[in-house]
């Protein structure tokens, strides 16, 4: 089957991409300033002998290529090394934090894509009118607002001024809940501000892409042909304009995932959200190189994986793109 061949080819491409990033990451952390042992020991007066012993213990006395081969071998066993700071396997730490980020990024992305599509279609349809100018203006402002700053504004307004939502964290520490519903509602209240911030930050970008895409499609001959057939405006959008305009958005969403993670770092840090973004931020502050390296690899895999999925999805959405 051609399909299988295509999938295999795409999969191989994805693996090669990940491998190249892996090599890059490995050497990136080795040219970074600071001796990892010094960070690990935190005792400036340690004896030279002890230092050499620890160095040998971590395998840092070996030549770089031997270290790299050990690293690859461990990777294949699912061992990403252990964190300097938490003194725990990196993979465990990452996996612990995944659900929190997934909830935040997942909810935020779905809502922002959905609303972005609607806003994009409406402003494209009303092109040149006040709705378009105002809508596009708001989208551009949201698109260019830094996530951390916007998050701080949200905290100031909703948590400090109105006092309706908590400033951060996923739940209240050390509280026993009377019921499951109570716990759920508390979680929702904690989720609200980070998700709102996240959604608003990304809505602008999606809306702008969708607007351009719809405007482009609306100028196609088949749109005019459909109008000549007496189609109503709603049907025109539903049958012809939106399905064709959605295609660029699919690849945009996948490519955007890298930036979304950057946004997650900022939003999670502002709201003390115990997810991957905040983990990365603290790992940076602590110079926790193994953890950072693991996180980079994990995120690379996510982005490449998302693009792989987008490629496959694309072929289902567009009959012109065959799996071959």
């Amino acid at each position: 089957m051609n399909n299988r061949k295509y999938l295999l080819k795409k999969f191989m491409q994805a693996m090669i991409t990940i491998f190249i990033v892996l090599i890059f990451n490995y050497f990136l952390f080795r040219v970074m300033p600071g001796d990892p042992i010094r960070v690990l020991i935190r005792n400036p007066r340690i004896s030279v002998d002890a230092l050499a012993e620890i160095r040998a213990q971590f395998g840092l006395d070996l030549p770089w290529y031997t270290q790299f081969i050990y690293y690859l071998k461990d990777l294949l066993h699912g061992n990403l090394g252990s964190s300097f700071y938490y003194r725990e396997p990196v993979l465990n730490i990452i996996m612990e934090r995944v659900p929190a980020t997934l909830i935040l990024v997942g909810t935020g992305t779905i809502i922002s894509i959905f609303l972005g599509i609607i806003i994009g279609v409406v402003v494209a349809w009303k092109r040149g009118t006040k709705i378009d100018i105002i809508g596009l203006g708001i989208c551009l402002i949201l698109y260019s607002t830094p996530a951390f700053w916007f998050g701080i504004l949200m905290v100031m307004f909703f948590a400090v001024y109105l006092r309706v939502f908590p400033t951060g964290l996923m739940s209240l520490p050390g509280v026993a809940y009377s019921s499951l519903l109570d716990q759920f509602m508390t979680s929702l209240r904690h989720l609200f501000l980070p998700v709102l911030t996240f959604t608003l930050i990304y809505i602008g970008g999606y809306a702008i892409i969708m607007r351009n895409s719809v405007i482009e499609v609306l100028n196609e001959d088949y749109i005019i042909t459909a109008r000549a057939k007496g189609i109503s405006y709603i049907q025109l959008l539903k049958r012809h304009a939106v399905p064709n305009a959605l295609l660029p958005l699919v690849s945009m969403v996948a490519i955007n995932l890298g930036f979304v993670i950057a946004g997650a770092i900022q939003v999670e840090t502002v709201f003390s959200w115990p997810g991957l973004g905040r983990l990365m931020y603290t790992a940076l502050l602590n110079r926790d190189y193994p953890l950072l390296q693991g996180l980079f690899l994990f995120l690379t895999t996510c982005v490449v994986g998302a693009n792989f999925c987008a490629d496959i999805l694309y072929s289902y959405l567009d009959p012109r793109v065959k799996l071959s």
Partner: protein
Amino acid sequence: MDDRNILEVKNLEVHFEARSGFLNNLLSREVPRIRAVDGVNFNLKKGEILSLAGESGCGKTTTGKAILRLVEPTGGKVYFRGQDLSLLTQKELREFRQQAQIIFQDPYESLNPRQTVFATVAEPLEVNRICDNTKEKEERVARALSDAGLKNPRDYFIRYPHELSGGQRQRIAIASALVLKPKFIVADEPVTMLDLSIRSGILKLMMELRDNKQISYLFITHDLSLAWLISDRIAVMYSGNIVEIGGAEQIIGSPAHPYTKALVSVIPNPERSSGTDRKLLEGEIPDPSSPPRGCKFHPRCSYAQPCCREERPLLREVEKDRFVSCHLV
């Protein structure tokens, strides 16, 4: 209105406002108006093929779209079977759309790439709620496809446009116009993008449909020899106006307007020795936002007189059913 006419176009105007820049808006400078169609008059008889010929940019496509109200006219009137199209309600406009269809130049652009052939051809039936019965719908789609010259029409139902050749695609586009049983079709350069070998098939098909189904055509083309071949009458357009209109044989045999003369003189003709008598036009079609004073053609006209620079000529009947807008005819 003459009963034999299906369409009467009177002083049709389409002026676009040029997109003005931010600075111009700020200084509230006057927005230049692009006179794409600048007072077009003609009639189309029932079962007639009228060609609208002219260089690209002369406004012929816009004229076609404005007649169907796919572009809103800014002036003038269009009467379809005696009905003023500018006064139609939404409901009446939909009924009009069932009788008047358009076929575009590029069948690679005029079909939605994500719709199957069946979805494309059945869509007009669905949006106009003509038949809800699936079986009847299939029947009508199949008939439209075979009317458009596709054999084994049901084989095409689940195919996508990208799986078909240019000629097949154009036949699909024609089928989706035919499925509503229209009385009038605007064919906007329907064969320009097709290979020469496929062209004759499509043209023959259009002429057969005229004979069998009494469909009237407005055939838009830049190719005067094609217009000569297919049409009963030819209207030559220049910069938003019709400069000459008359029977196809008359126009080609004895062109009156200097512009038509120049166009006719470059039609390839095996009987004429090459190079003789050819009038190659110089210069460009005028900028439609600031057309020259007087006759719009005078800067390119080798016969131009002082009066041509001052006064714009009107379309006058010079012999029966032959109209020319030139001071010198």
